[in-house]
C-alpha cells in the first residue's frame, strides 16, 4: 500500500507541492498507518450497503480532493458506486471521477456505460448531468463517445440538455482539437436554437472553437440581438463581446463622416438621453435627406438599441461589455451614455474598480468630454488602495483641460501631502503631464514643483527633479534660476534617476550656468566611482559637453573622468568613454568627426512628450484581458477595423423570414400582432427607448391594449411597440403568454414548433397576417379580394429595402402594386401551361382555404420536363386521382405486393417550402418540395424539387448551385444549370440530397449571373425515409426486435378530422414517407418505412380506441428520428 500510495502520488503529485501530506512517507510510521487505516475505513464505507455510509465516505473523499490531498488510490472503490441509486452519492462520485479519470483512464472506462445510460434517462436533469460528467472526463479514448453524446444532446427536446451540450463542446475541443469540423456542425445547429437558455452557452462554444467563422453568425444575428436581454448574465457578456467583433466586420464606421470638430460632437454628451435620441433621429433624417453617404445599417442600430438597457444590469461584467460595445461601435454622440454606468461601477469591489478604471483611462483619452461631468467621482480618498489612486490620477490627468485645470491642480495639491509616497510620486508625474499638455499652467506647475524640491522626502524631490527636467526642456532660457537651484541639490539627492536628470540638465544648458557647471563636474569627478551607472553615464556626458564649450577650465577634469571610466567595471561605460574620447579630443590623424562634435552633442533636442501609458490601448478590445495587460493574450481575437465598404447586409435576412416561420399557432393572434409590429419596427428603424422583456402575461395584455395607438404612427408610442415586440420574443421562448407561468415544459414545446413547418401553419399565418393588416388599415382591404393579401404582404416586407436605397424604392413599390394583377396573370398562365403540358398539379387537402390557393398554385406549378420518364408517368396517374380515390387505391396497393411503393407516397399532397423569398431574392422566388420519388442516380438521396419563379422584369441567367456546405456524411447532387429564366417565367428542377438520416440543413449558394444567395434546405423528419413493404407478421417480428429504448409510445386524442381510418392513413403518410402494412384488425393502422441512408426500419402503429382516443407507437433504431417522428405524427393526428 505504501508503495502504491507514494507512486500514485508522484504521478499526480503536482497538486501536492509544498503541502505536508500524511501518508506519503513510509518512514513516518505512526501517522502513515493511521492514514492507511483511514483510507481502509473509507473503502469499507464505500463497499457497505448503506447509502448514508457511502455518502459520508464520499463527502470525506471530496473534502480531501478539495484540500489538494491525493485520493487517487481510492479510485476502484469509488468508481464502483457510479451506478449508485442515491443521487447524492452519485453526484459526489461524479465529482471524484472528473478529478481522477484522467489519471486512471482504464478504470474510468468502467463508468462510461453508466453515463451512456444516463444520457437516455427520461429526466432531463440526469441526461444533462451525465453529459456534463462524460464531457469532463478527460480520457482521449472516449472522444468518439463524447462526440456522439454531444450530437444527440444538441437535438434533445430539453433546452437545458442542449445548453449542456453547448458547454461540452469546448471541453471536447480542448481534449481533441481534431474534432473541430464536427464540432462546428454542432455549434451551427445550436446557434440556430431559439431559446435563451442555449444562446449564451453556444456563443461561448463558438468563441472557443471557431471564432473565425463569423459567417455562422449572419443568420442568427438578429435573433441573438433580440434574445439578448433574456439571456442569463454570463451569456450576455459573451454574446455582446462576440457581436462587437461581428459588427466591426459587417457595418460601416458610424463616425466616418465625423469631421474634425471634436468639440461639436462632444457637446452632445451633456444632453439628456431623450435629447440625444431626438437629435440622433433628426440626424438620421437629415443625413438621409442630404443623401450623405453614411446611413446606419438597421442591424447596427438594432444591436445598439438592444444592448443599451443592459447598462442597468447589476452585473459589472455585463455593464462593461455594453460599454465597450458602445465605445467601439456607437456614433460619437451616443457613446456618452456609458459614462454614468461606468462611474456607478466604481462603487463596487476594489477589483471591479481597478478594471473599470483601467478601461476608463483608455476611453478618457479618446473621449474626454464623456467623463468630464463626472470629474469629482475620480477624486481620490485617503482610504483608496494605491493601485486605485494611481489609476484615478491617470483619469484625472486625462480629463484635465483649460477649464478644469485649476480645480484639478488644487486637488493635486492635497494629494502631494499624502502619506502614501508612491502616490505622491505619481501625482508629481501627473502635474508634469498637465503642465506639458496645458500651456497656460506650465509656469504655475513648474513653480509648484520647484517648491517640492525642498520637500523632506527624497522620493518626492527626486520625482520632481525628473519632471522639472522634462518641463525645462521646453523653455530652458527662462529658467536658469531653477537650474542653479537644482545644481545645488546634487549635494543632497541620492536617488540615481534624479541625479542623472540634474547632471543632464546642467550639461545641456551649461551655457546658462557657466560658473556652476564646472564646479558640479568637479564634485562629480570626486564621487564618480561610487555613483550608479546611469549617473556615471551622465557625468561623462556632462564632461564631454563642458569640454566642448569650456575646455579651458574643464580639460583636465574631463581627461580624469574619462580615465576613470576607461577602467570601469561596466562595459557600457567603458565603451562610452572610448567613444567620447575619440570624438571630442583632437587627434593627430583621423578625427573626421571632430569638427562636428559640438553639433553632435549640443544639438537642439526635442522636448519629450509626456504621454499617458493608456494612449492607443484601445486597439485592444476594451474590457478584455489583453487590454488590461496591454499585451495580446492567448485566444484573443483582434478587433477588426471597420470595412471600407459594407458587406452584403442581406446575409442576415434569413431571420426576417424566420420571424414568420417560428410563430406558433398557440400564441394566437397576439403573437402574430407582435410579428407584424416587429417587422414594422424594423422597417421604420425607430430609435427609441430600450426594451426590457421581463414581462409577465399581465404586462403583455397591457401592451396589447396600447398597441392600437401605435398605428397612428405617432412617435410617442414607439416605446410601446418595442415592448410588444420584445414580448413576443419571450413568449416564443417560453410560451408563458398563453398558459400559466408555472408551466415548465415550455422549452420543449417551443422547440417542437421550430421543427415543424407544414403548410397548415403557413396558411394560418397568412390568414393571421391578413387580419392584422385589416386592423391596421381598416378602410383599405376589408372588401378586397383574397389575392390582395399577398400583395400587401410584399409591401411590408419591402419596406426595409426602401430605406436602404431610395432608388430601389420606386421599383419595389411599383412591383408591390402590380403584384395583385401579377399573381392573377400568373395563375392564368399556369393554367395554360398546365393544359399544354398535360401535367396536373398534385392534390391539395380539401381543407385548404381559397385564400391561399392562388399562391399555392403558383408554387406548385410543376415543370416536370426534367423528371425521369418512368416516374413521371406514375405521377400523372396519381395526380388525376381524387383524394378519396387515392386512399382507396392505397388500400389496394397494400394487398398488391407488386405495386410500386412510389404510388403510395405520392398520394399525399406535396408541401411547398420556401427556399428564397422573392424579396430577398430580389424578384427571384424559389420554393422546394419533397416529391418522394426515388432519385434516379443514387438510391440514398432524397429527391427535392425546386421551383424557380422569376418575378423581375429582366432575365435571370445561369441559375446554379455553388459551394454547398454540408454536414459530414451528407451529399448533394446539384441540378443542372438553368441557362435563362425569362421574366415572369418559372421552371422546376430536381436535385438529390443525402441527409445522412439527420434533419440537419443542407446549406448552399444559389447563384444567378449577378447575385449569390445563401439558402438552406431542412427536411422534415418524415421525408428522411422511404416506404417498405412488409406483411403483418414481418412487421410484428421486426417490431419485436425494436423494443425498449427503441420504442416510443404516446397517447393521443384524435382530432376531429382524423376519426376514420382513411384520414388516419392519409395524415400519417402525409407526415412521413412510409407505407401502410396490411392488417387484420380495423383498430390498428400500421406503417413501415426505412431511413434513406442507413436503411434503419421505421415502424409506426396507430391503435384507435373508444371516443377518439388512440395510441401511437414508433419503433426505430434511430432514437432521434423516432422522437421527432412521434412529434410530427402526433401533430397531424390531433389537428
Amino acid at each position, binding site marked *: 500500500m505504501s508503495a502504491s500510495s507514494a507512486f500514485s502520488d508522484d504521478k499526480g503529485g503536482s497538486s501536492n507541492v509544498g503541502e505536508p501530506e500524511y501518508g506519503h512517507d513510509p518512514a513516518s510510521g505512526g501517522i502513515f498507518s493511521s492514514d492507511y487505516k483511514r483510507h481502509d475505513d473509507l473503502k469499507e464505507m464505500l463497499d457497505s450497503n448503506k447509502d448514508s455510509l457511502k455518502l459520508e465516505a464520499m463527502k470525506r473523499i471530496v473534502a480531501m480532493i478539495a484540500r489538494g490531498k491525493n485520493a487517487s488510490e481510492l479510485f476502484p472503490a469509488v468508481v464502483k458506486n457510479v451506478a449508485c441509486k442515491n443521487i447524492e452519492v452519485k453526484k459526489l462520485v461524479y465529482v471524484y471521477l472528473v478529478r481522477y479519470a484522467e489519471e486512471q483512464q482504464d478504470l474510468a472506462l468502467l463508468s462510461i456505460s453508466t453515463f451512456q445510460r444516463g444520457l437516455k434517462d427520461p429526466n432531463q436533469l440526469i441526461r444533462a448531468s451525465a453529459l456534463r460528467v462524460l464531457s469532463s472526463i478527460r480520457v482521449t479514448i472516449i472522444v468518439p463517445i463524447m462526440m456522439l453524446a454531444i450530437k444527440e444532446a444538441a437535438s434533445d427536446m430539453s433546452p437545458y440538455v442542449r445548453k449542456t451540450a453547448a458547454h461540452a463542446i469546448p471541453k471536447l475541443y480542448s481534449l481533441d482539437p481534431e474534432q473541430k469540423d464536427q464540432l462546428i456542425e454542432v455549434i451551427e445547429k445550436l446557434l440556430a436554437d431559439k431559446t435563451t437558455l442555449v444562446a449564451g452557452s453556444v456563443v461561448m462554444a463558438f468563441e472557443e472553437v471557431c471564432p473565425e467563422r463569423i459567417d455562422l453568425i449572419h443568420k442568427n444575428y438578429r435573433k441573438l440581438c433580440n434574445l439578448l436581454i433574456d439571456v442569463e448574465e454570463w451569456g450576455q457578456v459573451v454574446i455582446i463581446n462576440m457581436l462587437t467583433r461581428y459588427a466591426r466586420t459587417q457595418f460601416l464606421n458610424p463616425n466616418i463622416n465625423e469631421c474634425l470638430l471634436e468639440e461639436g460632437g462632444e457637446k452632445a454628451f451633456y444632453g439628456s438621453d431623450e435629447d440625444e435620441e431626438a437629435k440622433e433621429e433628426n440626424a438620421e433624417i437629415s443625413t438621409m435627406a442630404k443623401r450623405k453617404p453614411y446611413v446606419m445599417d438597421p442591424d447596427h442600430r438594432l444591436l445598439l438599441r438592444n444592448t443599451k438597457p443592459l447598462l442597468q444590469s447589476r452585473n459589472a461584467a455585463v455593464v462593461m461589455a455594453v460599454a465597450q460595445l458602445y465605445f467601439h461601435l456607437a456614433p460619437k454622440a451616443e457613446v456618452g451614455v456609458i459614462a454614468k454606468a461606468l462611474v456607478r461601477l466604481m462603487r463596487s469591489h476594489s477589483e471591479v474598480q481597478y*478594471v473599470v478604471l483601467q478601461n476608463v483611462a483608455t476611453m478618457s483619452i479618446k473621449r474626454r468630454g464623456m467623463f468630464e461631468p463626472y470629474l469629482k467621482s475620480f477624486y481620490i480618498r485617503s482610504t483608496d488602495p494605491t*493601485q486605485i489612486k494611481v489609476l484615478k490620477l491617470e483619469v484625472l490627468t486625462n480629463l484635465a483641460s483649460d477649464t478644469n485645470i485649476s480645480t484639478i491642480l488644487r486637488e493635486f495639491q492635497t494629494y502631494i501631502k499624502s502619506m502614501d509616497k508612491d502616490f505622491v510620486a505619481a501625482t508629481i508625474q501627473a502635474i508634469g503631464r498637465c503642465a506639458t499638455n496645458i500651456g497656460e499652467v506650465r509656469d504655475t506647475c513648474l513653480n509648484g514643483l520647484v517648491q517640492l524640491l525642498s520637500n523632506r522626502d527624497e522620493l518626492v524631490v527626486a520625482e520632481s527633479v525628473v519632471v522639472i527636467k522634462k518641463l525645462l526642456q521646453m523653455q530652458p532660457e527662462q529658467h536658469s534660476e531653477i537650474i542653479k537651484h537644482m545644481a545645488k541639490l546634487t549635494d543632497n539627492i541620492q536617488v540615481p534617476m534624479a541625479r542623472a536628470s540634474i547632471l543632464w540638465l546642467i550639461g545641456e544648458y551649461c551655457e546658462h550656468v557657466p560658473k556652476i557647471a564646472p564646479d558640479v563636474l568637479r564634485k562629480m569627478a570626486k564621487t564618480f566611482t561610487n555613483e550608479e551607472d546611469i549617473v556615471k553615464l551622465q557625468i561623462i556626458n556632462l564632461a564631454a559637453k563642458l569640454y566642448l564649450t569650456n575646455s579651458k577650465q574643464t580639460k583636465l577634469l574631463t581627461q580624469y573622468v574619462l580615465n576613470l571610466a576607461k577602467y570601469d567595471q561596466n562595459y557600457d561605460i567603458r565603451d562610452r568613454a572610448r567613444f567620447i574620447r575619440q570624438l571630442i579630443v583632437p587627434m593627430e590623424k583621423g578625427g573626421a568627426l571632430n569638427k562636428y562634435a559640438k553639433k553632435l552633442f549640443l544639438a537642439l533636442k526635442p522636448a519629450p512628450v509626456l504621454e499617458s501609458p493608456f494612449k492607443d490601448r484601445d486597439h485592444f478590445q476594451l474590457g478584455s484581458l489583453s487590454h488590461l495587460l496591454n499585451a495580446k493574450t492567448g485566444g484573443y481575437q483582434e478587433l477588426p477595423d471597420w470595412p471600407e465598404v459594407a458587406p452584403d447586409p442581406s446575409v442576415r435576412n434569413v431571420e426576417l423570414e424566420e420571424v414568420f416561420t417560428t410563430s406558433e399557432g398557440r400564441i394566437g393572434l397576439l403573437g402574430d400582432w407582435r410579428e407584424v409590429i416587429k417587422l414594422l419596427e424594423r422597417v421604420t428603424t425607430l430609435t427609441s427607448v430600450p426594451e426590457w422583456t421581463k414581462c409577465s402575461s399581465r404586462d403583455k395584455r397591457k401592451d396589447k391594449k396600447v398597441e392600437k395607438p401605435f398605428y397612428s404612427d405617432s412617435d410617442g408610442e414607439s416605446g410601446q411597440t418595442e415592448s410588444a415586440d420584445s414580448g413576443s420574443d419571450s413568449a416564443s421562448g417560453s410560451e408563458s403568454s398563453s398558459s400559466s407561468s408555472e408551466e415548465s415544459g415550455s422549452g420543449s414545446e417551443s422547440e417542437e414548433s421550430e421543427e415543424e413547418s407544414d403548410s397548415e401553419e403557413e396558411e394560418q399565418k397568412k390568414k393571421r397576417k391578413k387580419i392584422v393588416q385589416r386592423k391596421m388599415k381598416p378602410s383599405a382591404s376589408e372588401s378586397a379580394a383574397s389575392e390582395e393579401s399577398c400583395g400587401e404582404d410584399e409591401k411590408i416586407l419591402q419596406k426595409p429595402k426602401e430605406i436602404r436605397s431610395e432608388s430601389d424604392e420606386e421599383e419595389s413599390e411599383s412591383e408591390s402594386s402590380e403584384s395583385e394583377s401579377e399573381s392573377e396573370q400568373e395563375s392564368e398562365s399556369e393554367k395554360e401551361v398546365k393544359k399544354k403540358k398535360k401535367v396536373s398539379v398534385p392534390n391539395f387537402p380539401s381543407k385548404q382555404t381559397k385564400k391561399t390557393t392562388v399562391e399555392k398554385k403558383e408554387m406548385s406549378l410543376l415543370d416536370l420536363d426534367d423528371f425521369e420518364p418512368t416516374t413521371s408517368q406514375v405521377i400523372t396517374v396519381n395526380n388525376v386521382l381524387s383524394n378519396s380515390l387515392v386512399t382507396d387505391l392505397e388500400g389496394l396497393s397494400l394487398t398488391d405486393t407488386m405495386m410500386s411503393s412510389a404510388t403510395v407516397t405520392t398520394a399525399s399532397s406535396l408541401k411547398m417550402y420556401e427556399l428564397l423569398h422573392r424579396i430577398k431574392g430580389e424578384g427571384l422566388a424559389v420554393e422546394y418540395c419533397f416529391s418522394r420519388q426515388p432519385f434516379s442516380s443514387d438510391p440514398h438521396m432524397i429527391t427535392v424539387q425546386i421551383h424557380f419563379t422569376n418575378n423581375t422584369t429582366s432575365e435571370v441567367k445561369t441559375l446554379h448551385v455553388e459551394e454547398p456546405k454540408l454536414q459530414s456524411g451528407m451529399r448533394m447532387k446539384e441540378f443542372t444549370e438553368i441557362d435563362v429564366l425569362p421574366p415572369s417565367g418559372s421552371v422546376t428542377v430536381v436535385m438529390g440530397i443525402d441527409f445522412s438520416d439527420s434533419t440537419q440543413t443542407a446549406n448552399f449558394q444559389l447563384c444567378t449571373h449577378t447575385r449569390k444567395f445563401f439558402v438552406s434546405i431542412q427536411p422534415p423528419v418524415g421525408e428522411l425515409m422511404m416506404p417498405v413493404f412488409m406483411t403483418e407478421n414481418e412487421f410484428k417480428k421486426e417490431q419485436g426486435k425494436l423494443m425498449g429504448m427503441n420504442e416510443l409510445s404516446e397517447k393521443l386524442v384524435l382530432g376531429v378530422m382524423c376519426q376514420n381510418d382513411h384520414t388516419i392513413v392519409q395524415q400519417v403518410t402525409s407526415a412521413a414517407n412510409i407505407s401502410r402494412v396490411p392488417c387484420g384488425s380495423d383498430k390498428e393502422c400500421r406503417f413501415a418505412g426505412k431511413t434513406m441512408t442507413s436503411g434503419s426500419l421505421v415502424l409506426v402503429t396507430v391503435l384507435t380506441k373508444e371516443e377518439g382516443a388512440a395510441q401511437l407507437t414508433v419503433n426505430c433504431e434511430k432514437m432521434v428520428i423516432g422522437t421527432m417522428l412521434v412529434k410530427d405524427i402526433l401533430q397531424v393526428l390531433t389537428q
Partner: protein
Amino acid sequence: MIHSLFLVNSSGDIFLEKHWKSVVSRSVCDYFFEAQERATEPENVPPVIPTPHHYLINVLRHKIFFVAVIQTEVPPLFVIEFLHRVVDTFQSSTGSTNVGEQLPTGQLSVVPWRRTGVKYTNNEAYFDVVEEIDAIIDKSGSTITAEIQGVIDACVKLTGMPDLTLSFMNPRLLDDVSFHPCVRFKRWEAERILSFIPPDGNFRLLSYHVSSQNLVAIPLYVKHNITFRENSSQGRFEMTLGPKQTMGKAVESVVVSSQLPRGVLNANLNASQGTYTFDPVTKLLSWDVGKINPQKLPSLKGSMSMQTGASKPDENPTFNIQCKIQQLAISGLKVNRLDMYGEKYKPFKGIKYMTKAGKFQVRT
C-alpha cells in the same frame, strides 16, 4: 473559462482547490505570493497577475484570496464578478448543507431566479431603503464632493408566485439605477414603477444614485485643530463633532478613524464621550463616539508625542467618519406603496429607511 480556483487564507495557505479542466499545479500560486509580497498591503495586490503560462485573477473577500487560474483571453470583470458572486452564494447558503437543494431547478423554470413550490405560513415582505453619503470635506469645512448612493435590499418570504409592484412618491430623484434581473425594465422606463416576481429570501432589488443636481445634506460637521511644531516632541490634537443637517433625527453609531503621521509615537487624548484607541504600530486612531447629543457635543482633545529629532510631518491626517441615521432616507426618497398580485393571501409588508455615511472623509 476559469481553469482552476485556489482559496488562500490570510496566513498564505492554500486551503481549497478546484479544477474544472486538467489539474493545474498549486505551485502556480507562487506567482501570486510574489505579487502579494511586492504589494505590502493586501489591498494592493493587482487583481490580474500574468505568469508565463497562466493568468491569475484574484479577489479578496473576508481576508481570503480567491485566486482563479485562466489560460486564455477572458474579460477580467467576468471572472472577478463571478468570484464575488461565488462568495455571495457561499455567504447566503451557509446553513443549508444539503447538496440536493442545489439542483438547478431554476434553470428549467420560467422564472429562473425563483424556485417553484415556495411555501410559508407567515407571508412577509420587508424592504430596507439604505442610503450612503459619499463625501469629501475640505480643511475649511466646505464640501468638495458629495453624492448619495442607495440600495433597496429585500427580504421576501412569500408563498407561490407573487408578483409585486413597488412605487415611489418621488421617483425622479433616482438618477442612475441598476436592477436585480427580476425587475421589468420596461415598466420602469414607462411608469417608474418597480414590477417584479421576487426571488425567494434576501436579495438586492435595486441600487441607485441620486441625481447630483440635488444638494446633498451633510449630517455632521467636524471642527479640528491638529498642529505639529518644528523640532518639538509634542503635537496638539483637538476635534469636536456636531450635527449639521439631520432632518431632526439623531446621528448614531458615530465612529471616527484616522491614520496619523508616521512620526507620531503616541497620543494622550481625552474623549468627552465614547472611547478611543490608538495603535502605535499602524498609527491608526479610532474613536467610537456613539450617539451625538446636540446639547453636549462630543470632543477629543489632548497631545501627541512625537519622535524626537524627527522633522515636522508635512502631511495632515484625514478623518474617516461612519455614522447612521435611522428612519431617514437623506435624499428624501419615499416608497409610495407596495402591492402584490398573483396570489390570494395578504402578506405582511414593511419598509425601513436608513442613512449611513459611506466613504465620508474630512481632510485637514
